[in-house]
């Protein structure tokens, strides 16, 4: 297995390469090794996430370059949004480019005095002056400039924070290949705090399988399974946006800061976006599915007839929820304008939408006034939200300074915590499906819907007892540690069964049976729990806002007792045993 780790220090502009066979042997790759590298590189786990002591780990895995769907890179860092372990995954070309440069992981430490960007080549690292690239408000333009200067067409990945990261918005994201994001938990702000504008990675190293014939056979099998599977077809056709109407029908789509559970939103459904706005689909490197849906928005300039701008805007379910139903926006063009603004600044769309939703309700209830919000926010009014997004980034007053630290922080300062829709400080994704979703967010390592798919469990088995739900969620999360150590896309989780993963390892010269894989997932999961514990996190019912117990879900109004039982059981069976 590839075992080279690149360590970059921004404080003194130095780098070194380590060979770490023991690391990949024990922890596979991706998330598995990122946990270890993060722990060993972080001198003080309690350090301020925006101080130079924070470290960023990027990792790919043993299936990167080897098999289709192995398209993700794992990032690990201390989150400036939650103050806990930060973990975020992105597609694009980062995983293949980093592996092609010869590395399975890259650790970025320290802090540069001046703005810089870093270029990672096969045989060396270049530190480039970034002073003239600061202050560019559109992250698309920054990446075009870097593409122009650095070359490497078709062989590179440009990983950059946007203006939001530069302004230290705590939920700023890091973008790669225009439309893919290390979206959640604020990696963009960590880049910003390190004066790091971007990392360009390029290379074309190749690797030999142990068993050439077998390798080509297994490759073909995985490819066939993927392109013929219905599960992958769904992501290709309407994409995740196909969930909008079914979830709305279930009364599981959060509406207007979770005050309601139904909204007329046909215009922003996956079907409507595909029929009226879809311009093209693109794919991450080495993925045949092409789930990235890009809408065309043609806008005429107000005072100039027949003068148009045409924007290409990527959308999916989470964005439609966060910048649509959650803030009462139901017109397609309004939604696309909001998504574009968030993309321009490089912000996490979910956190942005939830922050705006809270601010709107806070204004309605008189918790804050227009003195704070500057603009009159009201559900459905896209123009006011566009302005508010500008303010979130520019932070012209104390209110927006607070809101740029996330909804939990702002609500603590101004009040309205009972309707600040975050779990453990992370603004929630769009699945008001029932108990398993919220239990999943509460105990999930990232407080994200992708940790353990609680929203899906709610839909498949809505009547699970609390303890059984916890066991099922943890089991799913343990297996997902294996997938994100390989690193394959969770969308392909139906293809990569334990049995197939084991067989796919063989031609690479790695013996790993199904039991061993499951055991590895369990160990990696527990390592993460241990790390979170060391960083000071204790799951608690107070991590859930009151609103969760008020709004109707498909399972009715949620009872507090269920969560008490679930959490009790989780603490006893898992958390306390680490």
């Amino acid at each position: 297995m590839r075992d080279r780790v690149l360590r970059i220090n921004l404080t003194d502009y130095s780098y070194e390469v380590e060979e770490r066979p023991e690391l990949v042997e024990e922890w596979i790759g991706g998330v598995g090794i990122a946990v270890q590298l993060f722990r060993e590189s972080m001198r003080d786990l309690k350090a301020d996430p925006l101080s130079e002591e924070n470290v960023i780990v990027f990792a790919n895995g043993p299936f990167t370059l080897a098999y289709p769907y192995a398209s993700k890179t794992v990032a690990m860092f201390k989150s400036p949004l939650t103050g806990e372990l930060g973990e975020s995954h992105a597609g694009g070309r980062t995983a293949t480019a980093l592996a092609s440069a010869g590395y399975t992981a890259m650790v970025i430490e320290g802090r540069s005095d001046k703005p810089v960007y870093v270029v990672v080549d096969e045989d060396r690292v270049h530190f480039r002056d970034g002073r003239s690239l600061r202050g560019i408000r559109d992250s698309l333009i920054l990446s075009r400039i870097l593409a122009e200067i650095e070359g490497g067409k078709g062989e590179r990945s440009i990983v950059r924070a946007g203006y939001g990261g530069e302004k230290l918005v705590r939920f700023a994201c890091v973008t790669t290949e225009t439309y893919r994001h290390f979206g959640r938990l604020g990696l963009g702000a960590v880049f910003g705090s390190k004066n790091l504008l971007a990392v360009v990675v390029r290379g074309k190293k190749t690797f030999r399988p142990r068993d050439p014939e077998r390798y080509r056979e297994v490759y073909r099998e995985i490819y066939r399974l993927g392109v013929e599977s219905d599960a992958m077809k769904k992501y290709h056709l309407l994409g995740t946006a196909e969930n909008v109407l079914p979830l709305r029908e279930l009364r599981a789509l959060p509406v207007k800061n979770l005050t309601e559970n139904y909204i007329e939103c046909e215009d922003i459904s996956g079907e409507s976006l595909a029929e009226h706005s879809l311009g093209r689909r693109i794919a991450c490197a080495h993925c045949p599915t092409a789930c990235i849906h890009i809408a065309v928005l043609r806008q005429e300039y107000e005072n100039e007839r027949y003068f148009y701008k045409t924007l290409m805007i990527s959308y999916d379910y989470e964005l439609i929820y966060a910048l649509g139903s959650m803030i009462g926006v139901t017109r397609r063009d309004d939604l696309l304008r909001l998504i574009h603004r968030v993309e321009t600044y490089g912000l996490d769309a979910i956190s942005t939408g939830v922050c705006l939703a809270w601010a709107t309700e806070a204004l309605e209830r008189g918790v804050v006034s227009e003195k704070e919000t500057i603009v009159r926010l009201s559900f459905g009014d896209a123009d006011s939200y566009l302005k508010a997004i500008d303010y979130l980034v520019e932070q012209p007053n104390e209110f927006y300074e607070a809101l740029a630290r996330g909804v939990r922080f702002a609500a603590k300062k101004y009040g309205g915590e009972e309707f600040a829709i975050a779990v453990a400080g992370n603004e929630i994704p769009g699945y008001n499906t029932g108990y398993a979703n919220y239990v999943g967010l509460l105990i999930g390592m990232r407080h994200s819907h992708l940790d353990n798919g609680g929203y899906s469990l709610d839909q498949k088995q809505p009547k699970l007892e609390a303890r059984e739900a916890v066991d099922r969620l943890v089991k799913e999360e343990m297996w997902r540690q294996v997938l994100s150590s390989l690193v394959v896309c969770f969308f392909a989780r139906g293809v990569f069964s334990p049995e197939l993963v084991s067989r796919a390892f063989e031609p690479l010269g790695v013996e790993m049976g199904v039991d061993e894989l499951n055991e590895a997932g369990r160990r990696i999961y527990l390592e993460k729990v241990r790390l979170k514990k060391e960083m000071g996190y204790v799951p608690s019912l107070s991590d859930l806002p009151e609103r969760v117990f008020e709004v109707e879900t498909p399972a009715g109004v949620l009872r507090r007792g269920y969560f008490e039982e679930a959490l009790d059981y989780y603490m006893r069976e898992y958390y306390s045993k680490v």
Partner: protein
Amino acid sequence: MKVLRLADPEKCVGCGLCMFACSRKNARDPRMGIGHAGIRAVSLSGFERGATVIFCHACAEPPCAQVCPTNALRPRKGGGVTYSEKDCLGCRTCVDACKIGAIFGRDDGKIAVCVHCGYCVDFCPHGVLEVVEA
């Protein structure tokens, strides 16, 4: 003689499966990666403009073969070239001679160029590539 052609470049999603296939095509020595590929999947100055693939379009009178000092590249019947790896010095003169940029440096210093074998077509999920009779 068969040649690889673009069936419809507008369908390209930039997944690059063709590159991985090309690197893997040698049954005795398949490579994992893109460094042995004679084809590139590229974005059109950013993915907002879409993607396409670049590969040898089988010139009738290939300049790359003309400038090759060792005859590692020779004109192929039906257009394009044949490539003899053992004769290649890695001088990259051919890379400059190809105006469409369809010859690529390999990770071992030699070059990669499409020889129209068609192995990648099987792995293009969206019908961008096809093999036709020249």
